[in-house]
């Protein structure tokens, strides 16, 4: 950053960014050309589709007349699997749903089950879950911004953001044992408490993050190619965003001022001081800006949470919900019985007969769980309301009538996670 300052170009500096003016490419088809329409198959194996999206495009010249999205190339049967696994087993599966931010999914599912059982976890567990959810938000957004840059040719940003993601992987690995698929929460608490010395480590990482965000922002916000390919591209109007059920950074970039963390707080978010960034443009650039801002807000939350981390247990032991620790199982009779009851088939958690919907704000938007309890330890129906599914359903409104090359920019800005889209 020192060199940047020497040239007077800090991240907040001004660089002329007006579009190319007369040199802007006109998309009017030349006479004689563009007659007759062409069907183009885009994906599923295309670098911009991240492997699993397919679009059938009808083109007139270079303009997309109509687009037909085709999804399901990663349909895994999560919901059917949810009806055959017990609540704690299913946490392992939620990791694989949104692998960019596995911790958020773990937390969301555990909260939904706890809502069904009407139990509350101890304050320390809540705070740790919140820290992990926010760290995973940073790890998701930083990679999304990097990939958005990479899709438009700015490869270094992706490499830079991956360096930071690796540091976050180290944090996750220290806490949960897994880099990507964490499975850290349990119904009624956490798998383990935080390991020794992790807090200084997280703090040391967080201290560097603002600088890194500045760097990434410097690389992209002043990059004329990036600006020309994102500003005014893939515009999602506020009406469409609401009608299609778009949530998360995409909706906030389109002017929908809504964040579950602020408007329906869960897990103690009401105790933290943070802002919800909102833009009104609704284009790919606004989505990028909202993500960058959200990382800064996550940092604020994390600073407060790490400074005020309560002490105490991380599992609620009342109500016989959580598996007892191994040290107790090996030494105490009651714990051993408790362990067997919870893990034997046909026994386990006793859920009430009832149906609940619980939503959390995952990095992509509203991640909701609809659980039907039937009195056994296995959900009768486990429906997930995937944010990516509804976010992606609005794609036609963003690309139809626009040139073909916009698709790459739009897909990069949506952050569609195929595992969550297709489940």
């Amino acid at each position, binding site marked *: 950053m020192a060199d940047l300052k020497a040239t007077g170009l800090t991240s907040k500096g001004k660089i002329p960014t007006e579009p190319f003016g007369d040199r802007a490419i006109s998309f009017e088809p030349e006479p004689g050309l563009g007659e007759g329409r062409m069907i183009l198959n885009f994906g*599923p*194996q295309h670098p911009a589709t991240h*492997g699993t999206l397919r679009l059938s495009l009808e083109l007139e010249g270079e303009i997309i007349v109509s687009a037909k999205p085709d999804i399901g*190339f*990663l349909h895994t049967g999560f919901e059917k699997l949810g009806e055959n696994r017990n609540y704690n087993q299913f946490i392992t599966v939620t990791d694989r749903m949104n692998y960019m931010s596995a911790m958020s999914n773990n937390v969301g599912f555990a909260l939904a089950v706890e809502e069904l059982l009407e139990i509350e976890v101890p304050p320390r567990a809540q705070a740790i879950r919140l820290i992990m959810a926010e760290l995973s938000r940073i790890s998701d957004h930083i990679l999304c911004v990097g990939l958005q840059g990479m899709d438009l040719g700015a490869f270094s940003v992706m490499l830079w953001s991956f360096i930071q993601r*690796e540091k976050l992987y180290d944090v996750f690995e220290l806490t949960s044992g897994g*880099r990507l698929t964490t499975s850290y929460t349990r119904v009624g608490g956490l798998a383990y408490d935080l390991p020794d010395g992790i807090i200084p480590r997280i703090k040391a990482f967080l201290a560097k993050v603002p600088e890194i965000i500045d760097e990434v922002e410097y690389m992209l916000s002043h990059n004329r190619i990036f600006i020309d390919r994102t500003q005014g591209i893939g515009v999602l109007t506020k009406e469409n965003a609401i009608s299609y059920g778009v949530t998360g950074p995409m909706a906030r970039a389109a002017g929908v001022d809504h964040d579950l963390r602020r408007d329906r707080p869960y897990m103690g978010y009401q105790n933290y001081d943070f802002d919800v960034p909102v833009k009104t443009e609704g284009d790919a650039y606004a989505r990028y800006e909202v993500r960058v801002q959200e990382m800064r807000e996550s940092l604020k939350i994390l600073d407060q949470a790490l400074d005020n981390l309560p002490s105490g247990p991380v599992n609620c032991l009342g109500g016989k919900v959580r598996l007892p620790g191994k040290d107790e199982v090996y030494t105490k009779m009651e714990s051993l019985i408790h362990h067997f009851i919870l893990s034997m088939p046909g026994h386990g958690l006793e859920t009430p007969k009832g149906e609940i919907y619980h939503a959390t704000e995952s990095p992509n938007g509203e991640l909701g769980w609809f659980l039907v309890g039937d009195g056994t330890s296995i959900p009768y129906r486990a429906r997930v309301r995937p944010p990516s599914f509804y976010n992606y359903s609005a794609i036609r409104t963003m690309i139809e009538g626009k040139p073909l090359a916009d698709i790459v920019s739009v897909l990069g800005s949506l952050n569609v996670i195929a595992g969550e889209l297709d489940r």
Partner: protein
Amino acid sequence: MGLEDLLPPFFATKLQTLLNWSRKNSLWPMPFGTACCAIELMSTLSSRYDLSRFGAEVLRFSPRQSDLLIVGGRVCVKMMPVLQKIYLQMPEPKWVVSMGACASCGGVFDTYTMIQGVDQFIPVDIYIPGCPPRPENVIDALQMLQEQIGSGKK
């Protein structure tokens, strides 16, 4: 510069050995990454683990230009025909790495739509365990494959 003096007057080898040597050191992977493994594959390629140290950094998303198919992630019934098509489109010689539990055996997803191991339908040379495998595992698998290619076993 006297280099001729250092080299032996003639250099004899089997053409096949020379070909294998060059093939093993310039693998062009085609990442067929669908799910979590794709993210770990990206980790392997990016700064910390840097797959280019082993001569396999030229990722090509076009099967016609690549010779190593890395199947990373879950493959479902809708994706399997795509995978087979991609396998057929790759020019010979070609190798397939099945990365992660899901591609190798279905992993935790024993459901109606998941292929229980891509090796049922396409030939696989190397399997990588893990869910997802660590980048070190991927590098290890790549080196094993290079060894086999070099010795002419594959």
